[in-house]
């Protein structure tokens, strides 16, 4: 099974050049049944990454482009009167896919955003009184553009907390970009990707993640980290229990990807920036994005052992 996972990773890496750590994190996020927020400039490969992941994991894929005139119905689906049967027939929206890419989520109004986020949280949608389950597995990869803020509705803290990880892809390295320029268009490579895992295998892997051993010593480390965010003055607020759970789940998935059946502090450290970066704010700068400096502080100052 792990060899298949490795195959998945390398397949995605061939599409998205020079982004091994981010791909690995994204994979860990999906294995830990978490949703992913990618924050980056346009054209950095956000869509490519999501699409490639969907392909290799054998998941059905839907993309929703969020715009300011997007309505909740556009995401969830609507009932349409069918003249033949004389009944309302439900037309499922794009959310009824196994992997949903919510592109530029901050462009939509809060109303539409929350329609997506509630679906993410509950794994089901309620439309016109009927509750419809979402497919299993169900992942959301949302992207947002941090720079052009004009006419956007930034996700509030409470919504950010629902994403297990926040990633930023960043510019590719020189070698990777050279390969990018010389080779085929990345998007054209996508259809050639073959599914490597099937649903059953993915389910097995996901079931195995919580079995990864987290010893008392490791839990102590997580507690020290969480405690530091709650007691140190530079943190505007501390990590919520949901945040600490997310941290442990992601660390387990990371350890699993590293072919270990136990978690070590290095696993926690590897996922820490992605998991807690968007959940923390600097006291001195509540409006800004001091999260990553705080994460660096945590990595440096909190004793790992």
């Amino acid at each position: 099974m792990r060899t298949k996972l490795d195959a998945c990773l390398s397949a995605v890496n061939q599409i998205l050049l020079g982004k091994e750590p981010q791909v690995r994190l994204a994979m860990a996020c999906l294995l830990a049944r978490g949703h992913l927020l990618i924050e980056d400039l346009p054209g950095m490969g956000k869509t490519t990454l999501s699409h490639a992941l969907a392909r290799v994991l054998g998941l059905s894929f839907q993309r929703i482009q969020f715009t300011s005139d997007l309505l909740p119905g556009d995401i969830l689906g609507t009932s349409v009167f069918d003249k033949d049967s004389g009944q309302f027939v439900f037309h499922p929206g794009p959310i009824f896919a196994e992997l949903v890419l919510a592109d530029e989520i901050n462009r939509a109004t809060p109303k539409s955003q929350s329609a997506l986020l509630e679906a993410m949280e509950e794994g089901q949608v309620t439309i016109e009184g009927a509750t419809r389950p979402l497919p299993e597995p169900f992942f959301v990869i949302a992207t947002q553009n941090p720079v052009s803020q004009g006419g956007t509705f930034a996700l509030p803290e409470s919504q950010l907390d629902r994403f297990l990880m926040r990633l930023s892809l960043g510019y590719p390295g020189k070698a990777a970009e050279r390969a990018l320029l010389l080779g085929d268009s990345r998007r054209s490579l996508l259809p050639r990707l073959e599914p490597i895992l099937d649903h059953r295998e993915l389910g097995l892997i996901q079931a195995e993640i919580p079995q990864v051993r987290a010893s008392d010593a490791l839990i102590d480390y997580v507690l020290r980290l969480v405690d530091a965010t709650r007691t140190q003055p530079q943190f505007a607020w501390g990590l919520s229990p949901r945040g600490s759970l997310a941290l442990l789940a992601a660390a387990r998935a990371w350890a699993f990807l590293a072919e270990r059946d136990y978690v070590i502090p290095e696993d926690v450290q590897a996922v820490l920036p992605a998991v807690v970066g968007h959940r923390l704010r600097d006291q001195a700068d509540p409006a800004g994005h001091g999260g990553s400096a705080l994460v660096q502080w945590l990595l440096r100052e909190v004793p790992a052992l």
Partner: protein
Amino acid sequence: MNRRWRPHWDRWLARRIPASGSVRLTQRRIFIVPSRVGGAFMIALGLMLLAGINYQNSLAYGLTFLLASVFVVAILHTYRNLAGLTLKAGGTTPVFVGEAGRWRVRLESSGRAHQAIALGWLPADLQSVDIAEQGSVTCELNAPTTRRGWLRPGRLRVESRFPLGVLVAWSWVDLDQPLLVYPRPLPGELPLHAGADQQSPEQGRLAHGQGADDFQGLKAYQPGDSRRRLDWKAYSRGQGLQVKDFASYSGLELDLDFEALDGDIETRLSRLCHWVLMLSERQQSFALRLPGLYRAAASGDAHRDACLQALALYGSPP
């Protein structure tokens, strides 16, 4: 302390206990000497020894020696009560000149309980706290503020006389947490920039009073938005924190100007401070002009704080 030796002492202390946001009291950082009570105790022991000698009484000798040994053993206990304690800067809240400055200091025990730890700035009274085993306590220290800018209250004295009071163990720590002191607000005429629309303050107020600012809609709360404009009704409906968005007439933007005032620098800053507070309270958008500094018009808590900070730090070296 002798004035001549003061700088040497400070330098030596700065090397030994460097300023830091978190200081753990260790052997190198704790000093210990007999206190005045200890002196009295020793005199009492001397008298008891004299009784032992003159009456050739072995038990009087014995009790004297026992108490002297207790004194010596108390050195270890007094030291132990302070050692291992970690002091951490717990942040400050900016205040206006004349208000009592407040510093939060967090004391953490890394094992033992610590009793009756006194801390504060001499010569003012020290504040006494107990810290439970593995526990922590945040205490708030006060000191008067007399001028604007960053206030560094000097080294904090941490001392312990527990258990017997015959010895005092202490340390001087610098938690490196300066307090921002804003100028004292002083009511006065609204100082508007001469270049802007020649608009009287009455008009500005009138415009505000008429409710000319249009309600634009709701937008999600961002830290830094004024809390006064939170839409609590929407919040109670479970729609999250939202802020009522007003558009104000750009022509009514106020431009506070340092140069429009006269008097000495402090008075001018105090006047500006007053108006920054007033306008922020009314959620009026305003700009601030200081010599060499311009803050574009905006409103909200973040803007107010930035303006106040600029006023507090005006003229001080960066």
